[in-house]
């Protein structure tokens, strides 16, 4: 490309997202059935949509303070106290961001310096590694294993920590694996975090989709709370992906630093969307419950069906993905997904899009109606029969 020598060399050599590539192929085909989407299928509940409309009608369309509307900051703190038993001060510890995505970017840019290492358990959501690199730090991958139900073990974490380690990224419930960290699991890693003094960036965007017991936030542990940065948002819990409202919860000194990056980059999150988020936080508990039940039914259904058609799948404990191995097919993840799309018109996401540790797996999203899932299973069953 003609600007290769001139542009930022980190960007030049950055791999485009494996998902993007797959999307481009799928988009050229007609009648594609997809279980490839990483967002809930529910249309945002009407009372939340109405709150955004109302804000626009009333002319509430000016910039807000950098860290977000005070009422929203309060609503977020109230939510974390109510749901996860974690206390934060609305004036000092919260910053509203443009989705969880901006939160990840701001936090990593504010924390990382050249030479730093960031531990990333993989398979992982596609943005982390790219942003760590853009922030000038080095990605240190730790493989999450299927036989350990895709949890981060104390041994693996300990082995990855060096003098250069700045932070570890935790994403539980996780995309793409559906892995969850329980209280027992955290009991193993919290002492290591405390002793090493590294930052823990915990992306809890799928917190509401925890199927066995309640979500445990790392911020609950006082001994590591000062060095814990929580990233969350409204996208997955309330089916509000397009509104782009996320938030960071952290020590006040960190929030001040994050806010420096945030204020010069985007000023503030969308104002009407912030009003919608206030409505969601205060009056959306029933919506969460309804969607949660739907997701649990779909999870149970898809896991049973996948096992029935011969794709060994363990029951994920969170999020809305299953991450089965396709090694039995003798194909690589890419090959499997490309053939499946080509022959059956069914789009899944190859596991290696989430890091090398995902090779041999595919990510199947069940953020679809039961009818759609049923159709997709029939296609997959046919595909497996042809290729066995």
């Amino acid at each position, binding site marked *: 490309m003609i600007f290769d020598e001139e542009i930022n060399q980190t960007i030049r050599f950055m791999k485009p*997202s494996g*998902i993007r590539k*797959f*999307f481009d192929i*799928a*988009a050229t085909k007609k009648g*594609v059935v*997809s279980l*490839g*989407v*990483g*967002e809930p*299928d529910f*249309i*945002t509940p009407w009372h939340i949509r109405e709150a955004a409309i109302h804000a626009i009608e009333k002319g509430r369309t000016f910039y807000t303070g950098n860290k977000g509307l005070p009422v929203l900051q309060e609503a977020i703190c109230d939510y974390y106290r109510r749901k996860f038993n974690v206390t934060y001060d609305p004036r000092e510890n919260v910053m509203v961001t443009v989705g969880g995505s901006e939160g990840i970017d701001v936090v990593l840019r504010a924390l990382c310096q050249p030479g730093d290492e960031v531990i990333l358990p993989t398979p992982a*959501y*596609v*943005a982390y590694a790219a942003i760590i690199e853009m922030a000038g730090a080095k990605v240190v991958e730790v493989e999450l294993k299927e036989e350990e139900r895709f949890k981060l073990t104390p041994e693996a974490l300990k082995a990855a920590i060096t003098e250069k380690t700045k932070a570890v990224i935790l994403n539980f419930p996780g*995309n793409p694996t559906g892995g969850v960290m329980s209280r027992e699991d955290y009991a193993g890693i919290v002492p290591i975090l405390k002793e090493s003094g590294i930052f823990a960036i915990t992306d809890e965007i799928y917190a509401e989709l925890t199927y066995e017991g309640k979500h445990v936030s790392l911020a609950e542990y006082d001994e590591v709370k000062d060095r814990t940065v929580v990233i969350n948002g409204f996208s997955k819990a309330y089916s509000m992906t397009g509104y782009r409202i996320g938030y960071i919860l952290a020590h006040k000194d960190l929030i001040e630093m994050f806010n420096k990056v945030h204020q010069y980059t985007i000023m503030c999150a969308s104002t009407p969307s912030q009003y919608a988020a206030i409505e969601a936080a205060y009056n959306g508990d029933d919506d969460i419950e309804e969607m949660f*039940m739907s997701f649990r*039914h*779909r999870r*149970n*259904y898809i896991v*049973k*069906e996948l096992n029935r058609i011969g794709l060994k799948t363990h029951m994920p404990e969170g999020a809305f993905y299953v991450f089965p191995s396709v090694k039995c097919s003798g194909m690589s993840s890419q090959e499997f997904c490309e053939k499946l799309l080509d022959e059956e018109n069914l*789009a899944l*996401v190859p596991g290696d899009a989430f890091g090398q540790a995902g090779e041999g797996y595919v990510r199947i999203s069940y953020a679809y109606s*039961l*009818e759609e899932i*049923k159709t997709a299973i029939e296609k997959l069953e046919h595909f497996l029969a042809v290729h066995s």
Partner: protein
Amino acid sequence: MNELLKLIENNARFEAKDLAACLGEEEDKTLETLERYRKEGIIAGYHTIINWEKADVEISKAIIFVSCVPERVAGYDKIAERISRYPEVESLYLISGKAEFLLQVNGKNMREVSNFVAHKLAPTEGVNGTETMFVLKEYKKYGVSFFEETGEGERLLVTP
């Protein structure tokens, strides 16, 4: 909340084995529960929601307030039972306010509905007044909006 009932409310065409998979229970147990619900009248029927206007089928529908005098002992239930027997009556509610009952009545056309009110409903024992409002257009029925939601088709095919 009963999860099986919630599930079939939205997935009426799902077979017992699929429902069982969703709930993580054995098919036999689901079948048994469904059977019991049918017997006990908890599952009172299966309906298809039809937008008749879109199908270009003419039907006439009216909302009717019915005033009446309650009977000794039986109260309003006896009259309600009498009214409910007419196949023209789609729904029947006892209500608070200016009348005792609210009915939805279906007919092939306006004349059929008018005849029903004049010759059957009004002369029913215990009924002492009716007020009929013809429906001009249906916008939402049984929780299903006849307005097309555009959101659904706009999700991308593959996203992170």
